[in-house]
């Protein structure tokens, strides 16, 4: 796969994927934390009519015009959502949904109109729907690099303002920050990132690039600065791996493969991340259950010894099995490993026996005290 990197087109596309991963991971982190993941989706879909309008104005597939058009309609949609949610009873999700569907419908109408009327130069305008990474040209990289650099500079300079507005907008307003201006700025930057990704990933899937890397990153870290860096890294990894995979296997569309790699990262993170992952909480639950079984067993043996007035009273395992209704051998062996019980023999014809050690009695007494205390606390 590495020899692919010698290919000029692959080099360009890979570099583009790196830039796209960085900018979307960076800005996506703030969008996800502000619970505005859908904003990226709306902006991406709203870019489609702009793509068509840019094409109609230029009369040809001129990338500059197309990007400018996309940016303008995406920003108009974002402003529409902001105004509608502020000045009417419509909530954010409904506003985003309305803006998304209306602008996408307009985009598709324009697209079909162009395909029916324009000359041959319309070729491949619909590639903006799902992206066409191979069409990335070295000159596009300058634009993508510029946007990435601008976004990084913005976040670095206004780190504390953006962090505060994201965490606690009311407090941010109370110390005099212009919350509305900062939010508009973040939205405009996300619109730029979306436009950057149109060519490569397309309007339909672009939102995944904004959401997936930050969501995956959040699982592993617990500081905003770490999350932003990790999200950028994961964005880069999905971009590069996706591009190389689709370049190595014939007839694989790059955009969807990039998104699939990003989704795989999310799935892995949701499962495996320490502390927050699903497997982690299963493991914790399982440990808890195991320890409850052991504690119950200690108390049972302690009570039986008390009852028989013999601290080293050997209890036959089959009796414990029938008392608990499950095989108790594994619990006893674990208690043995911790030094709380020892195997004992009683009568030759009987099965294996177990007796509590002094340490076991101590542990059982402490457990009983804890139980009393818990009950008293209720």
């Amino acid at each position, binding site marked *: 796969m590495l020899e692919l990197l010698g290919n000029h087109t692959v080099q360009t596309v890979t570099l583009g994927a790196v830039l796209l991963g960085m900018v979307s991971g960076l800005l996506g982190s703030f969008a996800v*934390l502000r619970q505005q993941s859908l904003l990226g989706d709306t902006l991406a879909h709203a870019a489609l009519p702009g793509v068509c309008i840019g094409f109609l104005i230029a009369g040809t597939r001129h990338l500059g015009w197309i990007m400018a058009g996309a940016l303008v309609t995406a920003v108009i949609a974002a402003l529409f959502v902001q105004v509608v949610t502020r000045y009417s009873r419509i909530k954010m999700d409904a506003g985003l949904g309305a803006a998304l569907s209306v602008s996408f419908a307009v985009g598709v109408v324009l697209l079909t109109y162009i395909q029916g009327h324009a000359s041959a130069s319309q070729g491949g305008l619909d590639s903006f729907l799902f992206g066409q990474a191979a069409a990335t040209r070295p000159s596009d990289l300058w634009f993508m690099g510029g946007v990435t650099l601008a976004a990084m500079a913005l976040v670095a300079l206004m780190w*504390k303002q953006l962090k505060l507005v994201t*965490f606690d907008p009311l407090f941010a307003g109370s110390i005099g920050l212009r919350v509305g201006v900062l939010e508009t700025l973040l939205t405009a930057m996300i619109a730029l990132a979306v436009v950057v990704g149109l060519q490569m990933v397309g309007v339909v899937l672009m939102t995944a690039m904004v959401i997936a890397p930050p969501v995956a990153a959040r699982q592993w870290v617990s500081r905003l600065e770490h999350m932003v860096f990790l999200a950028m890294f994961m964005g880069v990894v999905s971009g590069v791996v996706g591009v190389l995979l689709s370049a190595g296997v014939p007839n694989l569309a790059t955009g969807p493969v990039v998104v699939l790699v990003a989704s795989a990262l999310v799935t892995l993170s949701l499962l495996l991340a320490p502390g927050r992952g699903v497997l982690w909480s299963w493991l914790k639950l399982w440990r808890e259950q195991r320890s409850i079984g052991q504690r119950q067993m200690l108390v049972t043996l302690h009570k039986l010894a008390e009852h028989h007035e013999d601290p080293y009273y050997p209890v036959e395992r089959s009796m414990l099995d029938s008392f608990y209704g499950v095989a108790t051998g594994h619990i006893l062996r674990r208690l043995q490993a911790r030094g709380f019980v020892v195997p004992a023999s009683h009568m030759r014809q009987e099965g294996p026996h177990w007796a509590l050690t002094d340490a076991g009695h101590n542990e059982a007494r402490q457990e009983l005290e804890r139980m009393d205390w818990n009950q008293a606390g209720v």
Partner: protein
Amino acid sequence: MKREKRHEPDLALHIEDLTVAYEGKPVLWDIDVNIPPGVMAAVIGPNGAGKSTLIKTVLGLVKPTAGHICIHGYPPRQALKRVAYVPQRSAVDWDFPTTVVDVVMMGRYGHLGWFRWPGKRERRRAMDALSAVGMEAFANRQINQLSGGQQQRVFLARAMVQDADVLFLDEPMAGVDATTEKAVVALLQELRDQGKTIIVVHHDLQTVRDYFDWLVILNVRVVAQGPIPEVYTGENLRKAYGGRIALLDPDSSGETPDAVPREVVN
């Protein structure tokens, strides 16, 4: 800014003819509020009385329809560094990836230049405030590991590092344990004794007399305001809460009720 004369400089908070409306409906209607410096004031009133709106308007988070506000004689935008604000705990996402000491340092952001990052000095101030609220052991914890009471203490520490003259708190006792409530009240009273003015949106009528020395009763309009003994009367409470309050006091002469008034839920 410098040429302007201060208006009512002897009052910590001066509000005149203030009306605030959401979508054409007045939430606060033509209210006048005056709170002297150095008191601990409660703002009470039934749901929808405009308590939170009042605080948000004073802080410039909500635009008034009419009227004016002065803090120690300055309009709110010129008094930003004189006020501290503790929003309701539910206003933020406590799963946000950050630590306790980080949140407290946010209280210094308003004093830092636009592009300055918080540094050692801010961290030291934050640690001092955290030990004042008994949370220094939690400084490097994730905020999603805190209980409700601990969250409230962190918010209070953040307000303390703001070095403000007037503190506004929105329902700081809501959903916290009894120990925290006592600790928060003791801290606020200590701040008041240092000469600061504390203004609290409060929901628990039973504790008003124990905690506060000044009272504003609100129900879209101002029902009554002034020192607790003059204002905390059965008549005033009934005027604000109407049928929603059951005074356990048989004597409805309008004297201060001996029995504790209880807000009837639903």
